[in-house]
């Protein structure tokens, strides 16, 4: 069985030799404010902005170059006259050259944080996304807790009881969980446990999402199945990663030193082993959570949850460029931010990393 060993991306130590020795006694705040760290963060933020520009330009280009339905035609509906379609095209600005449209879009975005209006129903995209973010956060954060609380302990136990029946069983199950597509797993979960069509009517089914502010109980019930389905593959992947990392770490020389000190095996594993094995996991967890904040498209679609992911899916169906653009930008923003946060965090988790 192959071991999943993730090597966390480690930024190159561009800090000077002298800062290496000086940085050690500095406190958390001190290090954050240290000039090399600050310069690094500023550089990364600038790069992030450039990335967002590139992403938005690419989305524009892809939308116009790849064949898609004509938004004006969709908007006009069946049997509309060509004149009517042309009129709509003009109001939406679709008759202008692509670069002109892009320029206008970016100008409004930068000056007014205006993401434009949906071609489909004239609703402000920014408002649409903002109203859906809490929903997506609910889905992502809940799933995150489940996959961390399941994945890490399972990985640790499998690593300690390596090659045991339990290890083989959990790793087999995890392989299945990684391989199972979310939409399939989602349907199975609905058929088994949802209140409407399930064999065991336990939790809210598809489309049962209720905001937390309205009814916390219903909110929870409606999210249990999506959480579990979304967490399944992540938990499985994390279990395998933690197992692989821990097995590798436990063969390190410093683990032998810890044992030679006369520490109990429990302390050797949980203090010395896990400390090293979980550091790269923190990186992965941050990135994965950031990615999900942009919308869990499949899960939200299967369970009909009104989050950013389903909005993105619907926008693509509707050829609704401003909405697509908005969701893509938000997704990219979360991924870029998560990357930056994780890289900065890594410097505190691993003292060898310097910026």
């Amino acid at each position: 069985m192959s071991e999943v060993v993730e090597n966390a991306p480690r930024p190159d130590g561009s800090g000077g030799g002298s800062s290496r020795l000086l940085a050690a006694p500095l406190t958390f705040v001190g290090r954050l404010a240290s000039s090399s760290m600050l310069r690094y963060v500023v550089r990364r933020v600038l790069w992030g902005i450039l990335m967002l520009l590139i992403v938005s330009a690419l989305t524009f280009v892809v939308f116009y170059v790849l064949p898609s339905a004509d938004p004006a035609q969709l908007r006009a509906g069946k049997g509309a006259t060509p004149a009517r379609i042309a009129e709509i095209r003009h109001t939406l600005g679709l008759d202008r050259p692509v670069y002109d449209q892009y320029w206008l879009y970016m100008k409004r975005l930068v000056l007014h944080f205006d993401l434009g209006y949906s071609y489909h129903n004239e609703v402000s995209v920014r408002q649409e996304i903002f109203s859906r973010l809490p929903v997506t956060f609910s889905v992502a954060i809940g799933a995150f807790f489940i996959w961390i609380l399941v994945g890490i302990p399972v990985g640790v136990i499998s690593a300690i009881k390596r090659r045991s029946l339990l290890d083989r069983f959990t790793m087999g199950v995890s392989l299945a969980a990684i391989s199972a597509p979310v939409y399939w797993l989602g349907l199975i979960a609905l058929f088994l446990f949802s209140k409407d069509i399930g064999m065991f009517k336990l939790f809210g089914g598809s489309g049962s999402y209720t905001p937390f502010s309205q009814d916390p109980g219903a909110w929870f019930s409606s999210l249990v199945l999506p959480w579990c389905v979304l967490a399944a593959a992540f938990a499985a992947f994390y279990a395998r990663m933690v197992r692989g990392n821990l097995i590798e770490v436990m063969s390190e020389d410093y683990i032998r030193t810890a044992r030679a000190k006369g520490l109990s095996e429990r302390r050797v594993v949980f203090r010395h082993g896990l400390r090293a094995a979980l550091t790269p996991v923190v990186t992965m967890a941050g990135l994965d959570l950031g990615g999900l904040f942009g919308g869990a498209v499949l899960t939200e679609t299967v369970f009909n949850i009104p989050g950013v992911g389903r909005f993105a899916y619907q926008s693509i169906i509707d050829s609704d460029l401003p909405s697509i653009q908005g969701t893509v930008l938000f997704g990219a923003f979360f991924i870029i931010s998560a990357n930056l946060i994780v890289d900065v965090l890594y410097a505190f988790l691993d003292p060898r990393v310097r910026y």
Partner: protein
Amino acid sequence: MSSLLEIHDLHVHFRTRDGVVRAVEGAELAVDRERTLGIVGESGSGKSVTALTVMGLTRFPNATISGEIMFDGTDLVKLPDNQMQSVRGKRIAMIFQDPLSSLHPLFKIGWQIVEAIRNHEKVSKKVARARTIEALREVGISSPEKRVDSYPHELSGGMRQRAMIAMALALKPDVLIADEPTTALDVTVQAQILDLIRRLKDDYQTAIVMITHDLGVIAELADEVAVMYAGRVMERTSRQKLFTVPELPYTWGLMRSIPRLDAPRPGRLNSIAGMPPSLIHLPSGCPFHPRCPYVMDVCLKIEPQLEQSEAGHMVACHLKPEERRRLGRELISQRSS
């Protein structure tokens, strides 16, 4: 009279997929307080496995350990794991070859030493930290009050090994096992570390087991020497005897392999022909016979036992003792001329 640490007929075997690895076969060793036992041999000769077995660190599910490791009246081979834990680190400490990989990279060195102290003694963090600083000072680390909060990667190789030694000695162990402690260090630093170990041995009345492949380290530090080959102790004597009348063809090979600065440069460096044997498929008879220039018929059939040659000199070899001494003396006079 029994020594502080005595190893009798120690066998350590590991079952692997390729067969049983006979890492240690009938090792006989002993060391006393304020004495240094040097164990010398090539890679895979069983020296490290012997040391780790004394520490109880080879008790893997696939390992079979038999024989006796008598330490201060207790047989460590039979000691249960939980009692072994209180011996390990506290009464017998060990330092390793590469101090960078042997220290945890994510913990401060002070934290790592404090942990060792508090693991064995009920003292407050403050007391343990003060003792840690004292131990760091003792091993020659300058401004230990600052270094105690350094991470291993912030120290030089020599400083790291000093920190390792401080960790090992913070609990004033009876025995310190040093497994090639200078191999990964610069030559100039090597001498400092050896000096340090010697000084600490005298200050703390510690027994030292020095594992090395370097006869120079043996000459520098050891009182007693054991030459190991293929998991067996093949020659055991005092340092003085080893460097005047070595009696084992393998030891001669090791000595010839030391390059000389004062003689004309040979066409190629001397080495012992062949490779160390596989510990799964050992040669018949004497394990050294395929590489031995003095091999006789008997060497292929019967394994020589470690036997007294002269007072205080044990050798496992089929060559006649007079012959061995003559050849040994010749080699030494050649090399010192």
